[in-house]
């Protein structure tokens, strides 16, 4: 059907290929090209219509003073919104919150998710129930989690207060103190989304190549060496995948922050970029400025993801 060498370059074990020109094709690949187009078309059409069309619209509106209640009354303001963004006091705070929240979430939920997946990959009694338990928080809606965690963090009623009072310590005010509020929101989000990293890692572990395990066993490798030399390299594409998706998800957290702190205290204490987009668009009635923040966020994320893809690629070819 096809030259074997070409098949081998098209399909590689390991990480995704570099973003760049695809391998050369011969004329006989026309059918493959058509097939690919047919397979991709429905999905691309949906994404174009319902994601990219609004995104382009959003980009256009970022250069206007659009008020969400006045769909026809937007006047162009040039780059004024972008200039304002650069000069505004809250830009730094909100970017800072977003970076802290996202970085902590990505790092901690990935490490813990992998640890849990490794643990529950072992043949331990009751692991099926514990697997469901780890997954459960991911299933609960953000709004319900917000209520549930009030019973953990509330300085008047919460579990933490209960425990701290028993040992005679005082409870920080998780809702009024900016640092603690950000800590609370981050912790809650990690707790909730552990189920996500866990399930993806678990799937990767379950689907791993057992022959490599067996080879390692024959070599008499210690568990740690086995983990570092056999498992971790095999999980590399999964790690890459999670580092991108967890980042993109956590930058866009909304429900949970709305339920827990509404972006406060002191106005922007736990406001992240997407929360700001909501706030500007629907509360401050400055949809044009909200569109600007959304555009900037999109560009930042695109740049970060591009770098991640590059780094991954360099790592795999090295």
């Amino acid at each position, binding site marked *: 059907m096809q030259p074997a060498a070409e098949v081998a370059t098209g399909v590689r074990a390991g990480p995704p290929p570099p973003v760049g020109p695809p391998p050369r094709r011969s004329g006989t690949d026309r059918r493959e090209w058509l097939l690919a187009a047919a397979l991709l078309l429905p999905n691309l059409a949906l994404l174009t219509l319902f994601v990219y069309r609004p995104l382009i619209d959003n980009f256009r509106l970022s250069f206007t003073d659009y008020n969400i209640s006045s769909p026809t009354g937007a006047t162009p303001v040039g780059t004024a919104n972008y200039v304002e963004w650069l000069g505004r006091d809250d830009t730094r705070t909100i970017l800072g919150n977003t970076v802290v929240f996202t970085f902590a979430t990505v790092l901690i939920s990935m490490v813990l998710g992998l640890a849990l997946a490794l643990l529950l990959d072992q043949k331990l009694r009751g692991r099926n129930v514990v697997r469901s338990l780890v997954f459960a928080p991911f299933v609960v809606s953000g709004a319900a989690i917000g209520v549930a965690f009030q019973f953990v963090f509330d300085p*008047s009623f919460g579990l933490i207060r209960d425990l701290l009072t028993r040992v005679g310590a005082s409870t920080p005010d998780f809702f*009024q103190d900016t640092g603690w509020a950000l800590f609370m929101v981050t912790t809650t989000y990690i707790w909730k989304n552990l189920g996500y990293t866990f399930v993806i890692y678990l799937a990767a572990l379950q689907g791993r190549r057992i022959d490599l395990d067996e080879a390692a066993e024959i070599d008499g490798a210690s568990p740690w060496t086995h983990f570092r030399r056999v498992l971790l390299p095999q999980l590399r594409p999964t790690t890459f995948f999670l580092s991108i998706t967890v980042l993109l998800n956590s930058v866009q957290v909304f429900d949970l922050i709305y339920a827990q702190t509404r*972006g406060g205290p002191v106005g922007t204490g736990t406001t992240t970029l997407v929360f700001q987009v909501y706030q500007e668009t629907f509360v401050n009635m400055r949809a044009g400025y909200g569109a600007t923040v959304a555009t900037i966020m999109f560009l930042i994320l695109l740049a970060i993801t591009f770098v991640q893809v590059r780094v991954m690629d360099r790592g795999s070819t090295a």
Partner: protein
Amino acid sequence: MNDLTRRGFLGLAGAAGVAAGLAACAGSGSSPTSSAGGGGPIQFWSNHPGTSKDTETKIIEAFQKANPGFTVSLIDGGKNYEEVAQKFNAALAGGQLPDVIVASDVTWFNFALNKQLAPLDDLLAAAGLKTDDYVDALYNDYTFNGKHYALPFARSTPLFYYNKAIWSAAGLPDRGPATWAEFKEWAPKLAAVVGADKVPLQMADGSNYLDWYFQNMAWSMGGQLSKEWTATASDPKTVAAGTFLQELAKNKWVKFSKSPDAEFSAGIAACALQSTGTLGGITKNAKFDFGTAFLPGDGACPTGGAGVAIPAGLSDERKKNAVKFIEYLTNVESTVTFTQATGYMPVRKSALNNDAEKAFLEKNPRAKVAVQQLAKTRSQDNARVLVPGGGARIGKALDQIVQGQDVATVFAALDKETQAAIDSQIKPKL
């Protein structure tokens, strides 16, 4: 090979057909929602304030009975006022408009400013409907350029709740403080009685409408957050009110939380400022006797809650029908039914002469206090309710004050932000 290719294409034909297949699975609710010309059912978008869906349905049934030929369909507009506004904003971008929406004290104005709400004065006059029976402060809340843009519906005010057992242990008279100065005299006594891990007064924090309650403090001391379209938080009297709040916080006489009714009901706070809308909840939750009282200060109680409004983009026919419905929804019988079921305030003056209401207030002295306070209400400052994002902006400043930042500096910065929003977002459209 050919066979395989064909099978391949069958597979992807299936994939391409997914969208078409989904389109075939039309929902059971695919009937058109309203007719463009009029005569169709009146679409009422409500967030059912105070868990009131059943009560709204009851009033709608009575309306349909009294007006044969009219039908109203009650639509779930969202879980709070913000969501109704969001859904209405979406409808403004394209699609069919509802006939009636619930609009809160904060959300109605941006719609009116952008000419998306119909002024009601002419519509009401044309239908021969009078407005002089509405409680004045409540009706006038919706005035803009001399016209009214909503009728008061689910209206609330803040209320002072106090724990009677703690009150008597502290040797205080069985009433609320007449002024904030009096509360300050009482606070140390209350603090001594409740002990270290409890608190004399609980209030909402800056993310949960502290700005609403603070207007009472400011007004009672002669200050205000804005005069018409001028920001006045840096006025010395308003600054004095901010300093007062800061002192209460510094002395740990007040604590702030998400929902102060929880602390109050649990007996952790001796008293609390909360909406009249939570009276029912507190009554069910509190395991002790409590009283309600007017807010401190005379005539310094802000109004709140929501009204009902009609979109400007409707046909005249639909507007005519809609105004008939919202008048019915807020007439004496309806307001009595609605407020007794939810704890909101009757919006009609003559509701107090209604027999059912009299009997109800006789049995519910705490609700009676809230209704009597209506005569002492005052429309809110533009800086909070009419300037977009005003509530959050003021809430932020109050959080800063409570945390000990310099009041004059914080309020000066607040004024600057408020004024900038007024000048750029409102003045050009006046």
